[in-house]
């Protein structure tokens, strides 16, 4: 504090003395003290501004000013002094001009050319001063100076100056000068264009073929601007030729192109190399695209096939097929920027979009390109994008963008809100520009959300692999602990934490999460090498497959992401979505109950498929166990390993004594058949016929006499059926028995027979109508099958109650064969007819016949 006060006092004293000194100098006029200070300052800025004050004090004293003038002074100061001297003695202008610096030259020329002067010998000056003078003659329209600049060494400037002074009238005089090759023809032509010289130049056009290159250049430029019809063919001829006027042709071409020329321009653009020709054809292409913006795929095709693909980069708009541009971008910044620009539109697949952005980041250190990439990432609703922005906080010129981007993404994406992302977002909370957004982030109260499984430093949170889950469950805790120590030491040799990346060297065993996971969502990026092979173990069990799709000898062409060890349920991914070997891929894996969904690079490749228990196929997949990264003897890299634990689905347990669940709300392990269309969702068994499954869903077990209770919810016109005492094959309504499940309130079923109504023993025993609840509400149903007696109770009302033997004593009511009607036992099944509907709380009690 003491020092601060001292500092403040001394600074004030200094400031005051400076201020006083400055005022002194300004007010006291030309004192010797001021003169000494001005000379001492040497024109360099100092707070008392002695030089300024000295010059002002001597504004009329040109002797002092002349003495003070020196070329070391700042150019503006020199101009000030020369200006003051010139008021009394104009000879200073010409005297100082030859050695003046550019800003001083410009200052002098303006005054010099304001009126006629004698004694000017252009050739006595150096080239730069000659040239500046000639240009100024035109700028200030100094007619008197024209004779001075004739026969100069700067023909281009001379001609333009002459035209500036004389306008179109000067053209005949310079026309002959255009015969030399020592002029910048295009520069002259560009100036000539602004003159009104129609009559003269139209006349010259008739002699076009005999004209010099510079003359032709002027004619092509001028005539093109004015759309002289006859010039069009001359321009095209010049462009197609190898004559010197070819450049002028290219320069004028954009005034003549129309949509019919698209292919011609495109072909030329693909092969030209000279910068001016590339530029000219790009101008043409810009024009054409403006006239017709629908040719994007044509442009992509031309670009990909072009000899010089870079020429096409500014025009590429298509998101699809960016690989060629990415390949170019590896060595060319402009192409990389185009890649980044176009990727900005690729929101249809955000995972791929973010991977491309991250690839681009790894390719360039160019600050502008990196900024462009981060600006794109801000618009990607993705956890990986948030992580990348978090990394961007370390780049000084990205920081603000990243801080605001993180906050915006956090607020916009509740599904990514969690302790970790909140910490990322608030790491620089006071730099968040938008106070309202900052407030929203700070007040948010997310759960744990996604958290990282890999800390970027070491292998904390991971452990080595000991046996398999089945064996582990049979091993004593002591033995397990011993084995774990050994496994952990093997792990540390094979798995290496390298910053953002987790590497498997190719030697060792699986890397296992210390924590056991039940239901979860996992995102992870992975990268393999040629012939690579790896995978994710879920709940300690193999696996979500990762492999090089080139390995057709092992069937890898199906792609990565499949549940490789499934035997009953699908094992292959539904499509190939792998990125090329050596590039990053993103997995999003969701495991709920026994089912797994896998997104690979934004494409769903596994859709709620049951993961079978590889270690013991007689039991369903474990309720919970480790997430493992598989070791398969080759180098593989992971990053962005984030997991979110999901609330497990409740397991259903019936309240009634003696009843067992037929479906526990999560697992179809006790069922067989169409486990594709019948899916557990939030404890309900949901039938979704659009999922592509086939056939019926049956209990694995057979039931004879039983009391079953369940609830069902219909959709309009829904049709299903409860098969009982049925074999697994054949039409259950005939080879067993079907108890109809049907929205018979729908007008489409107006003509049904009573033995087809809801609750009927299909084709055999009719049911009472009118007890279904309105479509969309849950119905409760009981089925009691005891010997030949079948009873169905719907919402508390007995709607079917009959004896199947008596029902057919006069033949089957529907006149069809029912060979399985009198089966003693069989499976229970759901007999889908392509309608969506839901079941829940399925429970059953077997009736053991009491012996009388």
């Amino acid at each position, binding site marked *: 504090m003491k020092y601060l006060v001292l500092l403040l006092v001394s600074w004030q004293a200094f400031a005051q003395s400076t201020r006083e000194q400055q005022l002194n100098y300004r007010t006291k006029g030309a004192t010797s003290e001021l003169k000494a200070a001005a000379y001492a300052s040497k024109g360099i800025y100092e707070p008392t501004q002695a030089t300024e004050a000295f010059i002002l004090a001597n504004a009329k004293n040109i002797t002092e000013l002349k003495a003070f003038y020196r070329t070391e002074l700042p150019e503006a100061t020199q101009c000030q002094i020369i200006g003051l001297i010139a008021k009394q003695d104009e000879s200073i202008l010409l005297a100082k001009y030859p050695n003046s610096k550019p800003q001083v030259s410009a200052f002098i020329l303006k005054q010099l050319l304001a009126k006629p002067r004698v004694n000017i010998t252009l050739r006595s000056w150096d080239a730069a001063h000659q040239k500046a003078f000639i240009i100024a003659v035109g700028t200030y329209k100094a007619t008197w100076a024209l004779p001075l600049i004739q026969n100069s060494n700067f023909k281009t400037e001379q001609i333009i100056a002459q035209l500036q002074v004389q306008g179109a009238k000067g053209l005949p005089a310079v026309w002959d000068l255009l015969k030399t090759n020592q002029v910048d023809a295009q520069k002259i032509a560009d100036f000539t264009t602004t003159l009104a010289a129609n009559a003269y130049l139209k006349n010259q056009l008739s002699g076009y073929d005999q004209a010099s290159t510079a003359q032709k250049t002027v004619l092509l430029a001028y005539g*093109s601007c*004015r759309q002289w019809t006859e010039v069009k063919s001359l321009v095209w001829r010049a462009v197609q030729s190898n004559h010197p006027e070819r450049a002028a042709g290219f320069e004028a071409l954009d005034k003549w192109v129309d949509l019919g020329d698209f292919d011609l321009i495109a072909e030329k653009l693909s092969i030209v190399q000279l910068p001016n020709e590339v530029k000219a054809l790009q101008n043409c292409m*810009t024009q054409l695209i403006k006239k017709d913006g629908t040719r994007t795929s044509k442009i992509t095709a031309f670009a990909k096939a072009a000899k010089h693909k870079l020429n096409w980069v500014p025009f590429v708009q298509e998101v699809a097929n960016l690989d060629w541009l990415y390949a170019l971008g590896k060595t060319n910044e402009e192409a990389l920027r185009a890649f980044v620009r176009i990727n900005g539109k690729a929101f249809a697949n955000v995972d791929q979009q973010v991977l491309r952005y991250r690839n681009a980041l790894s390719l360039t250190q160019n600050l502008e390109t990196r900024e462009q990439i981060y600006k794109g990432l801000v618009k990607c609703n993705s956890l990986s994008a948030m992580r990348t922005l978090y990394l961007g906080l370390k780049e000084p010129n990205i920081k603000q963008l990243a801080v605001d981007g993180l906050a915006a993404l956090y607020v916009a994406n509740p599904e990514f809100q969690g302790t970790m992302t909140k910490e990322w977002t608030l790491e620089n909370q006071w730099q968040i520009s938008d106070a309202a957004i900052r407030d929203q982030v700070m007040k948010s109260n997310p759960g744990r959300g996604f958290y990282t499984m890999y800390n970027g430093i070491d292998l904390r949170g991971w452990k080595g692999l000991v046996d398999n889950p089945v064996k582990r469950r049979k091993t004593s805790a002591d033995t397990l602990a011993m084995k774990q120590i050994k496994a952990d030491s093997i792990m540390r040799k094979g798995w290496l934490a390298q910053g953002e990346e987790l590497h498997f060297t190719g030697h060792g065993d699986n890397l296992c999460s210390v924590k056991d996971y039940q239901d979860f969502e996992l995102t992870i990026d992975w990268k393999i090498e040629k012939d690579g092979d790896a995978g994710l173990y879920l709940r300690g069990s193999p696996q979500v497959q990762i492999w090089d799709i080139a390995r057709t000898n092992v069937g890898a062409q199906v792609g990565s992401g499949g549940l490789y060890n499934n035997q009953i349920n699908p094992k292959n991914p539904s499509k190939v979505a792998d990125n090329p070997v050596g590039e990053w891929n993103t997995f999003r894996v969701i495991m709920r109950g026994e089912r797994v969904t896998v997104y690979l690079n934004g494409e769903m490749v596994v859709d709620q498929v049951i993961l079978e228990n590889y270690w013991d196929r007689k039991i369903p997949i474990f309720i919970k166990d480790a997430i493992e990264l598989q070791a398969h003897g080759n180098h593989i890299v992971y990053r962005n390993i984030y997991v979110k634990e999901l609330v497990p689905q409740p397991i259903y347990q019936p309240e009634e004594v003696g009843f067992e669940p037929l479906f526990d709300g999560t697992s179809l392990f006790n069922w067989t058949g169409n486990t594709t269309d019948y899916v557990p969702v939030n404890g309900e068994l949901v039938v979704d016929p659009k999922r592509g499954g086939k056939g019926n869903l049956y209990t694995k077990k057979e039931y004879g006499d039983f009391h079953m209770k369940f609830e069902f919810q219909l959709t309009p016109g829904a049709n299903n059926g409860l098969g009982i005492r049925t074999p697994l094959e054949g039409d259950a309504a005939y080879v067993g028995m079907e108890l109809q499940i049907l929205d018979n309130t729908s007008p489409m079923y107006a003509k049904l027979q009573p033995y087809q109504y809801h609750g009927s023993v299909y084709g055999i025993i009719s049911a009472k109508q009118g007890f279904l609840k309105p479509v969309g509400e849950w119905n409760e149903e009981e089925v009691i099958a005891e010997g030949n007696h079948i009873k169905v109770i719907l919402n508390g009302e007995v709607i079917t109650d009959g004896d199947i033997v008596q029902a057919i004593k006069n033949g089957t009511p529907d006149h069809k064969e029912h060979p399985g009607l009198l089966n003693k036992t069989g499976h229970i099944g759901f007999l889908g007819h392509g309608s969506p509907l839901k079941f829940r709380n399925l429970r059953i009690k077997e009736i053991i016949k009491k012996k009388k």
Partner: protein
Amino acid sequence: MAITLTINRKKVSLDIDSNTPLLWALRDHVGLLGTKYGCGIAQCGACTVWVNGEPMRSCVLPISAVGNAQITTIEGLDPAGKHPVQEAWDELDVPQCGYCQAGQIMTAAALLKKNPRPSKQEIIDGMAGNICRCGTYHRIQEAVALAAKKVKK
């Protein structure tokens, strides 16, 4: 070919090729040099004039397409040069080299005619077709906003 144009409310008879872009009819034959030649391919906006009150790029508009339309150039925007946009331009000292300004002003005045109270974004969007190589965009946007206030009064 003789053709009659209505330029700044005056009828002007010209005997020139009907393919001639309006810009050059104005500059070469009528002597109105306020409208500038920039790119010649309708990309920069320097040559903007009004055709029946609509801002158009005169460098690519053949006079054959103009017909009886009313043409307004920067010279005809206001007889005294006191259009609110021009006054705003003056007050805020908008131009630097000034080359693009006639086009900028014509576009701005047309914008305000259609939308007397443009938002900041509407100004940016409305002026987007006019390029200024000195980069005076921030002053241009301020001036259009100021002119809008003047128009309201």
